[in-house]
């Protein structure tokens, strides 16, 4: 019999401890031990030992006969320091089968569906029917006369009928349902439920379905074959375990005879069948581990005797401790036979089968100065058995209170299990705690742990912040406004400039080709400034393996395809002269190596920063770094820098400061910041104190079946999380807004431009002062065109970002194109109305074909073919600018 994956939808793993005599347990590993009168300890022995009055899981050990094994018995004398029996819970898989039989009753009129199960349990058939002509997957309650006695209706769509044993000695439980073939019932649907465990058994993750008429819709979970319908593609193949038995043919005969009787219902060619499916029930099993400690009078050592009734090979993973905190250590020899040392931390001893043939045991000789014996059990199927999730702890010094010790381990495990977001965070806290304990060798490690916790905290805080902030309660809104409002308009906050910045991307993908880009740009400096830009972003200046500059090699070599270091300095000087701030495009994520290591892998650096492979992250096999794991995504074309290394960070900070002071950059455009943790960026920004910073955190938006989701909160959340990790010290490109504009403008879905809260749906709707809005850059557009803005809609895009809060960035190709005058007009409108990165947006229309908003009560704008006019009330709006698909008004 093959096993079909029948999902048991066990809702909770919290199985009750229910040792049961079980005739059907399959192989010899089964727990027939329960029937063995010679085995194990009385119920009393097991419950009395658990300290009354404390929070403990009460152990329902049932049906064990009182008889104690000889060896363990021997420990009941006076020299016993400790004696304890622990319950051990295991999950045992029990195989059985479900059968489904459809046949005609004796009177040949009615049909009968029988469902049975060979496993013991409190089986319930949870079932319903569907009628001919029903669509969808809804169930209906069967007619009353179909319901077997004992059925209980569940809401209005199902019936639960218990399965009963056919006779007392029978191992099958069964239920029979009478069917009237002339009724309009198209199919019977059911699942099997075991009330004992609460587990549900389904068929391929769905209901079992027994079709009674020609059920065309083959959705793969039908049971039972049909004749008369010639093609039943794959029906047999779908049920590898289906056993067509001799009854089938018999039933066939019956049905065909019926067919002839009832010729009008030609399509109701019911056919009997019999089918079996194997199921696996996970049965919680109760076993025991007993431990006794005795003082050996001759050697003054402690003898610890351990035995268990768990079948199969059992390995004790153990150690001893000398103090209260249960620090594992390996005791001195001798060890029991079949003991190995595991990773220098623990010992592993294979338990020896007991003489009686049930279970296994071992005894350990331990020095008397040890405080405790710690162990866990490793079972045959590679699962671990613990004391309520924790190590077993056996106190060895007789004077100490056994109860307290147990209670301690008890509460540990309960605490762990009671937490919703348990393990990760517990581990985290432990790491943090250990992190605070400064042991030199662990310094880096603990630092990392701390950082990851801080990172987690920051993430959570960012999440909480964004929700509190976006919730409509006036309370929090005001609180936020209070923070932002008092900032004087010209105050420069670190990394975000004045708030009135407008960014120009001063290059495209081809700019390196001339070899003298710096000089070409220098000539355009005053022109760019006169268009109203305040910040210009220059291409990556370092020596690079690729001509565009994004594969940097020697960071201090600023002679690139764009020009020499002196030309760069000259350019920056003239840009400053016309009032532009200059952003350097710095690539911190990766760096190309100068030399190969002994394996021929390029991961040794040269130049002024001659790092070795410790500066390369350790989790990219291509580059065989010896650094720590990457704190972000990996960029696979070059060695990714391990920013967790102190020396790397120190060098990078120095480099940035050098760029600031020596070369004259005012701020940074940070390449591929997905590659490393934002907390490091914060570090770099704190050191280099830039005037303006924007990071490229570019990942994919959320799509469902190639249709972009309306809700891009998760996407912008990731960007906001990054900004938060940098402590808000800089902004990030609002990739979310670009993506949404693509759909809104490209597919005429302008409704997308308002999120569920009526705010802009991009980063700009959540954290406008840190959002750098853009519609195109050298990657998305230019000659690469990885993600090009919908053609012809560029001006609508600019009408959006240049009127909205956030810091807008305009791409070089658009500045020097036929859009130039329109862009200039929008910029001057923005500047004239003093729209800044924290301006408020009131979205007044977000419909299929039009989006309109009023910004700061000074500007009104619309994009899209639909119509919108600003309100004609006390305020007088006058048209300021109009173009293809957009219009902007200002107050007159």
């Amino acid at each position, binding site marked *: 019999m093959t096993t079909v994956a029948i999902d048991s939808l066990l809702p909770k*793993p919290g199985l009750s401890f229910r040792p049961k005599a079980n005739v059907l347990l399959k192989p010899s590993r089964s727990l027939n031990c329960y029937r063995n009168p010679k085995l194990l300890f009385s119920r009393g022995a097991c419950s009395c030992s658990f300290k009354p009055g404390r929070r403990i899981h009460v152990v329902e050990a049932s049906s064990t006969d009182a008889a104690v094994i000889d060896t363990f018995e021997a420990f009941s004398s006076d020299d016993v320091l400790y004696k304890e029996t622990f319950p051990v819970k295991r999950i045992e898989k029990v195989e059985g089968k479900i059968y489904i039989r459809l046949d005609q009753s004796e009177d040949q009129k009615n049909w009968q569906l029988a469902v049975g199960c060979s496993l013991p349990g409190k089986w319930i058939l949870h079932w319903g029917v569907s009628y001919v002509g029903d669509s969808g997957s809804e169930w209906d309650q069967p007619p009353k006369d179909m319901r077997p006695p004992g059925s209980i209706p569940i809401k209005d769509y199902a019936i639960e009928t218990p399965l009963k044993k056919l006779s007392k000695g029978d191992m099958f439980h069964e239920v029979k349902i009478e069917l009237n073939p002339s009724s309009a019932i198209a199919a019977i649907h059911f699942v099997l439920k075991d009330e004992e465990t609460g587990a549900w058994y389904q068929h391929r993750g769905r209901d079992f379905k027994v079709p009674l008429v020609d059920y065309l819709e083959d959705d793969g979970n039908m049971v039972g074959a049909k004749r008369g319908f010639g093609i039943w593609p794959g029906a047999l193949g779908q049920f590898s375990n289906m056993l067509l038995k001799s009854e089938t043919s018999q039933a066939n005969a019956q049905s065909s005879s019926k067919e002839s009787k009832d010729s009008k219902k030609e399509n109701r060619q019911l056919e009997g069948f019999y089918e079996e499916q194997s199921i696996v029930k996970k049965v919680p099993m109760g076993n025991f581990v007993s431990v006794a400690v005795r003082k050996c009078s001759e050697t003054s050592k402690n003898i610890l005797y351990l035995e268990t009734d768990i079948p199969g090979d059992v390995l004790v993973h153990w150690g001893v401790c000398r103090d209260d905190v249960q620090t594992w250590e390996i005791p001195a020899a001798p060890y029991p036979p079949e003991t190995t040392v595991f990773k220098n931390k*623990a010992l592993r001893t294979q338990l020896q089968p007991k003489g009686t043939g049930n279970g296994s045991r071992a005894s350990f000789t331990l020095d008397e100065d040890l405080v405790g014996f710690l162990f866990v059990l490793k079972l045959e199927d590679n699962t671990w058995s613990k004391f309520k999730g924790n*190590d077993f702890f056996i106190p060895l010094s007789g004077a100490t209170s056994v109860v307290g010790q147990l209670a301690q381990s008890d*509460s540990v495990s309960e*605490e762990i299990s009671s937490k919703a977001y348990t*393990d990760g965070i517990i581990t985290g806290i*432990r790491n943090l705690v*250990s992190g605070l304990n400064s042991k030199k060798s662990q310094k880096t490690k603990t630092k990392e742990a701390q950082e990851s916790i801080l990172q987690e*905290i920051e993430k959570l805080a960012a999440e909480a912040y964004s929700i509190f902030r976006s919730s409509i309660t006036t309370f929090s809104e005001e609180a*936020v406004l209070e923070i932002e409002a008092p900032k004087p308009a010209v105050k420069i906050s670190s990394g975000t400039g004045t708030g009135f910045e407008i960014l120009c991307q001063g290059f495209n993908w081809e700019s390196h080709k001339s070899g003298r880009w710096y000089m070409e740009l220098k000539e355009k400096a005053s022109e760019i400034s006169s268009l109203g830009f305040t910040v210009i972003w220059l291409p990556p200046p370092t020596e690079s393996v690729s001509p565009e500059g994004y594969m940097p090699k020697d960071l201090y070599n600023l002679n690139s395809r764009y020009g020499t270091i002196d030309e760069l300095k000259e350019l920056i000087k003239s840009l400053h002269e016309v009032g532009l701030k200059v952003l350097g495009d710095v690539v911190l994520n990766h760096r190309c190596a100068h030399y190969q290591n002994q394996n021929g892998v390029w991961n040794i650096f040269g130049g002024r920063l001659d790092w070795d492979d410790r500066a390369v992250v350790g989790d990219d096999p291509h580059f065989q770094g010896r650094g720590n794991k990457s704190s972000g995504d990996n960029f696979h074309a070059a060695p990714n820098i391990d920013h967790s290394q102190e020396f790397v960070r120190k060098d990078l900070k120095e480099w940035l400061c050098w760029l600031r002071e020596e070369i004259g950059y005012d701020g940074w455009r940070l390449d591929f910041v997905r590659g490393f943790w934002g907390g490091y960026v914060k570090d770099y920004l704190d050191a280099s104190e830039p005037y303006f910073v924007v990071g490229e955190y570019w990942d994919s938006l959320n799509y469902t079946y190639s249709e972009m989701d309306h809700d891009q909160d998760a996407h912008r959340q990731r960007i906001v999380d990054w900004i938060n990790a940098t402590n808000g010290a800089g902004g990030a490109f609002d990739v979310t807004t670009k993506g949404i504009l693509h759909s809104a403008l490209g597919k005429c879905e302008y409704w997308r431009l308002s999120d569920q809260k009526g705010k802009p749906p991009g980063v700009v709707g959540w954290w406008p002062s840190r959002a750098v809005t853009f519609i195109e850059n050298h990657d998305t557009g230019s000659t690469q065109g990885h993600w090009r803005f919908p053609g012809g809609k560029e001006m609508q895009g600019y009408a959006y970002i240049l009127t909205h809060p956030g810091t807008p960035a305009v791409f070089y190709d658009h500045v020097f194109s036929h859009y130039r005058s329109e862009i200039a007009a929008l910029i001057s409108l923005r500047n004239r109305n003093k729209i800044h990165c924290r301006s408020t947006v009131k979205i007044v229309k977000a419909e299929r074909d039009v989006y309109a908003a009023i910004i700061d009560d000074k500007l009104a704008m619309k994009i899209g073919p639909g119509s919108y006019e600003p309100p004609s009330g006390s305020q007088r709006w006058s048209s300021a600018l109009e173009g293809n698909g957009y219009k902007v008004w200002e107050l007159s």
Partner: protein
Amino acid sequence: MEVSVIGSSSQAKICKTELAYRDLRFCFGKNNDKSKILSRKPNSVCFESQTARFRKARLRFTLEAVHSEAVLESKSSTGSNSLDKVRLFVGLPLDTVSDCNTVNHARAIAAGLKALKLLGVEGVELPVWWGVVENEAMGKYGWSGYLAVAEMVQKADLKLHVSLCFHASRQPKIPLPKWVMQIGESQSSIFFRDRSGQHYRESLSLAVDDLAVLNGKTPIQVYHDFCASFKSAFSPFIGSTIMGISMGLGPDGELRYPSHHKPAKSDKITGIGEFQCYDLNMLNLLKQHAEANGNPLWGLGGPHDAPTYHQSPNSNNFFRDHGGSWESPYGDFFLSWYSNELISHGNRLLSLASSIFGDTAVNVYGKVPLMYSWYKTRAHPCELTAGFYNTASRDGYEAVAQMFARNSCKIILPGMDLSDAHQPHESLSSPELLLAQIRTACGKHKVQVSGQNLASGAPGSFQQIKKNMLGENVLDLFTYQRMGAHFFSPEHFPSFTEFVRSLSQPELHSDDLLAEEEEATESVHTSSDANIQMQAA
């Protein structure tokens, strides 16, 4: 006073014995030394451990008798007691539960709780509003929203401090229960009234405490029923998750008169406030008191020569530094009566709370305001109008502390973040001196003090809080106000994080090292694997 003590296993016994010392004051040694509990006072007890086996026990001392309750703590927190030691709470948003009894921004709070837990914060404070729970009709309580929050807190493995708010809130708007407001419409004398006839509708006048003005019940009875209902509804949490309950004592939950109807604008210096003794029942009490004192004429109204709300002390005669009426026999008569009424009111509420919660493990707290404006004048007009007869020549807080001591309650003091340096010079205010004065009075009467901040994230506030927390007198706990958008904003949260981390001692004694941490994490991993398997089952 709540102290964590680490000691030998025999300690449970020591704790159970009734300690005669009324002056127990434990605190931790700086280096978190496990073997010793240092005592600051010479006559206090010092526990020393004898065996190598320690257990943590938490002892609770109330003033005269010693309650003890040994709570065994887990191994994992043994390791993290550098964080445990700082008993830091954070207030949940005032509108955590709104009037339709739903939890507002539950997702944000859930994330916030996790973040706080990771930071090592001990618990959160939850304002429970009379106007939310018993809003519809008297005796009809809806606890569901708050129970849901308590469950969230429990799940996050944090402690909960509940503030029972029998007052209303302006921002966010949470009024008194509807049925109370309805009664108030026809019977405005249940509210405080000032000289000009304005009513203060955000809490009931203390003069009606024992008058059957609420559908035949007295407010005290109504508060009592409320507390009793709270106790039964939250019984699964009390003593385990809920470790403290603040009893609302008046306006903003504080023990005071609403002497400032409207808070002064932030750019203005807080005025002196006005006496609130003009509602019918207050005037009755005053009249009776005056007659009993043989001065019936003094019982006709409040001081005629007191300035109005935002005036300065010297603008009229009453509070004048020299020769003001406050120093006259009449002034003393009036101020004694006025302040005694407030203390009696506090006593009624706190004894009510202790009688209900006395048999549980929770501590009962009451909040005393920090009326620090004009503290440097002789008359302390702000404190006088608020009901604290504290002047240059009279300590008004002794009686208050005594009242708290009588009821075995702890005092919450706000304004731990305020430093004199940041006060406008002209206001003649001194939050630090006033705080010190109240804390001295509390120390005298063995009343434990826990702290709160008033503003959030103001310059220097964290340093000031730290100074108050870790200074000479150890605080029972500190509640930081309050979670919300600003709290988690990038402008504020990083400095809060830094503050919390700076509280835990960075260097620990070597024997605190969790040496087997690898093993520990490994076992956590395997157990989580086991969980996964179980889930799949």
